[in-house]
């Protein structure tokens, strides 16, 4: 009789792989991640959403995880010269650090805490916005390589109305589909 139980056939036992690396506290350590904002597509497929959805300003998130913390870049852009799109142009770029904490023992459900420096602007503002963002995210890891995430943000900076300060608390609006790369 064998002491080790073999993984069930057809079911990928991805979470056990982290034990192969003693230095890595988590299975996401030393990996790269790229997240795509899938809210527009999901809102088309989910039947009980009949209103106009808001996807937020961030379209792509790229992260590089070290042992416990990650460096991350968030990007969103829609810049046109076309007069038909007046009022819709914007730009968002943020650099920051993130840390992920497991909620469940199997690490399928996690939350993140992040600090970002952001630069943003849109057609309606008098000047570009610059400041700090504190983000709290929630994630569900479908497999070791694919996971869903969303994030709430508290923004503090310049670029508010009429050149004043910007203080915003943004509830989670977007669902990101993330892919982990090794």
């Amino acid at each position: 009789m064998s002491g080790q139980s073999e993984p069930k056939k057809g079911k990928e036992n991805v979470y056990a792989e982290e034990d192969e690396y003693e230095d890595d506290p988590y299975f996401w350590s030393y990996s790269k991640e790229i997240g795509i904002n899938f809210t527009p597509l999901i809102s088309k497929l989910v039947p009980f959403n009949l209103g106009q959805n808001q996807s937020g300003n961030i379209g792509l998130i790229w992260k590089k995880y070290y042992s416990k913390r990650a460096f991350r870049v968030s990007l969103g852009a829609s810049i046109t010269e076309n007069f038909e799109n007046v009022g819709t142009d914007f730009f968002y770029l943020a650099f920051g650090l993130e840390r992920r904490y497991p909620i469940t023992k199997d690490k399928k459900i996690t939350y993140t805490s992040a600090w970002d420096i952001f630069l943003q602007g849109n057609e309606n503002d008098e000047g570009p916005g610059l400041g700090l963002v504190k983000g709290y995210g929630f994630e569900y890891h479908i497999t070791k390589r694919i996971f869903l995430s969303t994030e709430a943000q508290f923004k503090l900076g310049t670029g508010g109305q009429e050149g004043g300060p910007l203080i915003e608390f943004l509830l989670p609006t977007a669902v990101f589909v993330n892919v982990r790369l090794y």
Partner: protein
Amino acid sequence: MKLLYCLIFLICFSLRSSGQSSKYSIKDFYAYKNELGINFTNVLGNVLSLNPENANSPYGLTYRKHIGMITFRSAFNINVTQREENDFSSGLFINRKLNIVTSDFRIGLEKHLILNKSVLFSYGIDLLGSVGNEKSEIQDFNLGGNTFISTEKTFGGGLGPVLRLEYKISDRIFISSESTLYAFTAKTTESLIINGLPQEDTKSSDSSLILVLPQSLFFNISF
């Protein structure tokens, strides 16, 4: 803008340098080399009554050819409108003709990362092209037979990176969606001829940089 492109380059380079540790090979994922796709979003919205919002992708058809770990990708859309009407209202007689031909196309290359046996992540770069020709002719038979012919010609081009997720339903059937960051510029020339006399042409240009989030679902068949 330069900072943005440096950033995109770094991300693409980083993706390229990521080693692939998956135990599935691309030959397992793609059993056939050719793939034809059609934008399926409106079917989901209209026929299945899921969500009435329309798809925003300009491309209706896609063709991809897999060559090892690299795939040649292309997409195409054409729109032809011809309309003619005679207006007899208020005792006037006006004949209007409208011809519109627009076409959007793109070609590119992409590389793959197999996430599991059913999900594939791809990243690549596209070259875009767009041509358009709109001709409007109005003949007014009331005031001595005036004729107005207006022509608008548009040529555009661009490029940008693409990120794509594909789900394998079977060896022959896939569904996919993608996000793009396209920089695009287009030049438009408008000309007007009144009673056979050409007026001075008007030229204009449009440029854009848009991060398009995934909002179209493509249904792909391999052969």
